[in-house]
């Protein structure tokens, strides 16, 4: 699983241009499923399994990034963000501009209250013409520079664990659950970071008894927390289910169902109560979906170039999904 995770994380996939991620995923997963197709929005769908209850696993392929707004006379690039970036965290981080021109983000303003407008990218260009020759100008996408490293134990550091970790868990689950009686559908969605847009398109046509939406959530089990209440989740203590975010509320019966499965399979479970939203939001209010469960992987330093997670959580997340699918299947057969 880790080999795939690393490849997915290093791929470029800013919202609106997820093709590189989709290609890796399709090559990896197509041999394990019956049917692979793409909708007109770019969402990539895999179908396999039997004819039992329809179970959809969704994970977004896109990541935050930026777009070049203008290039100044000296060849420095100014940009706007795609998705939510923290300007303070961006200073000093490396990026790739366009197809792969490396650069570094720096600030022209000192002090704390940085805005994205205060930042620029130095890609070593002598002027705008040199960049133009490479096809770089207003509209060119910017992505965090690829990096993937092994920290101590099971901890890993990389850009875009949000949400390649979810994509990876989805792929692994599809592989291991290939012989289930459930109708198993994996949907790798686009443009989550700019307003769960891919999931909105999915919600137009997906019909499912269960939707499991995979994403990451804040783990603040670090000196950054001012009290333990800020923690939300911890690394290494298993997947978290969302009880509430800005676009989702978990039904008590759904919560009991997931907790029961986790308990019977010996999987640790955490709870996420946070702001923002995930792909679960539009799906759980859609006409064709009965039950929606957001399942999240704890992540430190989200939306930076150096996000940190624990591989153990990914494995437990796969096990939870397999447990859920198994129980849905066996319940249907009774």
């Amino acid at each position, binding site marked *: 699983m880790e080999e795939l995770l690393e490849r997915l994380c290093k791929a470029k996939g800013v*919202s*609106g*241009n997820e093709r590189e991620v989709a290609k890796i995923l399709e090559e990896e997963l197509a041999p394990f499923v019956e049917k692979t197709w793409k*909708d*007109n*929005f*770019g*969402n990539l769908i895999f179908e396999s399994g039997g004819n039992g209850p329809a179970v959809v696993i969704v994970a977004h392929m896109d990541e935050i990034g930026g*777009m070049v*707004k*203008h290039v*100044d006379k000296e060849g420095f690039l*100014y940009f*706007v*963000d*795609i998705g939510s970036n923290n300007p303070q965290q961006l200073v000093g981080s490396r990026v790739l501009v366009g197809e792969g021109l490396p650069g570094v983000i720096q600030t022209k303003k000192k002090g704390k209250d940085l805005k994205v407008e205060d930042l620029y990218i130095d890609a070593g260009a002598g002027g705008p013409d040199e960049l133009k020759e490479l096809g770089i100008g*207003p*509209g060119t996408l910017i992505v965090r520079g690829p990096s993937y490293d092994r920290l101590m134990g099971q901890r890993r550091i990389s850009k875009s664990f949000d949400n390649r970790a979810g994509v990876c868990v989805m792929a692994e689950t599809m592989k291991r659950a290939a012989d289930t009686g459930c109708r198993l559908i994996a949907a790798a969605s686009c*443009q989550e970071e*700019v307003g769960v*847009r891919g999931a*909105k*398109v999915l919600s*137009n*046509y997906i019909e499912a008894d269960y939707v499991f939406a995979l994403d990451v959530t804040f783990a603040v089990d670090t000196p950054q927390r001012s009290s333990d209440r800020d923690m939300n989740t911890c690394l290494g203590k298993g997947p978290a289910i969302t009880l509430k975010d800005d676009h989702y509320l978990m039904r008590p019966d759904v919560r009991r169902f997931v907790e029961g499965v986790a308990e019977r399979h010996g999987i640790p479970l955490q709870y996420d109560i946070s702001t923002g939203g995930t792909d679960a939001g539009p799906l759980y209010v859609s006409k064709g979906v009965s039950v929606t469960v957001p399942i999240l992987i704890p992540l430190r330093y989200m939306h930076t170039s150096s996000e940190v997670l624990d591989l153990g959580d990914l494995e437990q997340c796969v096990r939870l999904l397999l447990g859920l699918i198994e129980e849905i299947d066996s319940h249907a057969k009774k």
Partner: protein
Amino acid sequence: MSLGELSCLRGISGQEKEVRSYIIREIEGHCEDIRTDSIGNLYAKSGGDSKSRIGLFAHMDEVGMMVTRIDGHLLHFDPVGGINPVLLPGTKVRIGENATPGVVGCPPKHLQKKGEGELSIPLEDLRIDVGDFVEEIEIGDMVTFDTEYRERSGVAKGKAFDDRIGCQCLIDIIKKGVDADCTFVFTVQEEAGLRGAQVASQNVDIDYGMACEGTFALDQPGVPDYDKMPMMGHGPVITIADRSVISSREMVDAMASVAGTFGIPYQFKRPFAGGTDAGMVHLSGFGVPSCVVSNPCRYIHSPCAMARLEDLNMMSKLIYESIGRISEGI
């Protein structure tokens, strides 16, 4: 060209009847199957078979205000759509079905305290004064800017260029006649949150969507040179991404290439500013690749905007030729 007539019609979000009737009169005989839906969107089919079907969208509504309370000769109001309140004091307006004249009141300079400019009046304290005409007014009446349309040396000034200029562009294209399978959609309530388009995008069967807009031009005082993007007189504006949609790259590339072939100037819009009907269209069905083409206008969402008619000509031409390219499959 009747941008003058079209932009002087009055229609805030939800009250687009006048505009709709006018457009129907204009396009009748030039297209088939003109119909409306229950929210007020107007649909027209044109052209023959083609590999891909294209939907073209322009919204009929304009920003304005609505009367919320009548207090003697003074009317309380709420803005409909995004209006900068500093523009309002002293502005002439027309109210309700009779287009009753009024003015947004403003204390005279004599009464202002030292250091207190008129800009300090909060929106909720502004009133529309209708003098003796108060009998004609009802709560819920629309308030539109009372602006004369003028044209000189190819520059037009008037109200509601966002998005009557888009409507005019689509009317021109309908009259010219297209070869491809096109559905023209004139939507309602865009300024209130893309609501007409949310309905319309469920009612059309299309492969590509294109929103046709009047957008801001930033070649105006107070904007640094590097931010003057787009500018008036530099051709139609193609959106790469705004707050509501990331345009289909294939469509953007196709339009840029069409522009090159026909020698049409074009410019890109400042990324991630504003939102349009394409925001709804691209999320409909199995997803509909969409983009936005706009006319650069200075001072939109204000009592008086400016536009260059040559930009509008170029926009019509770019869209017309792009329809040909995109409908053949990209």
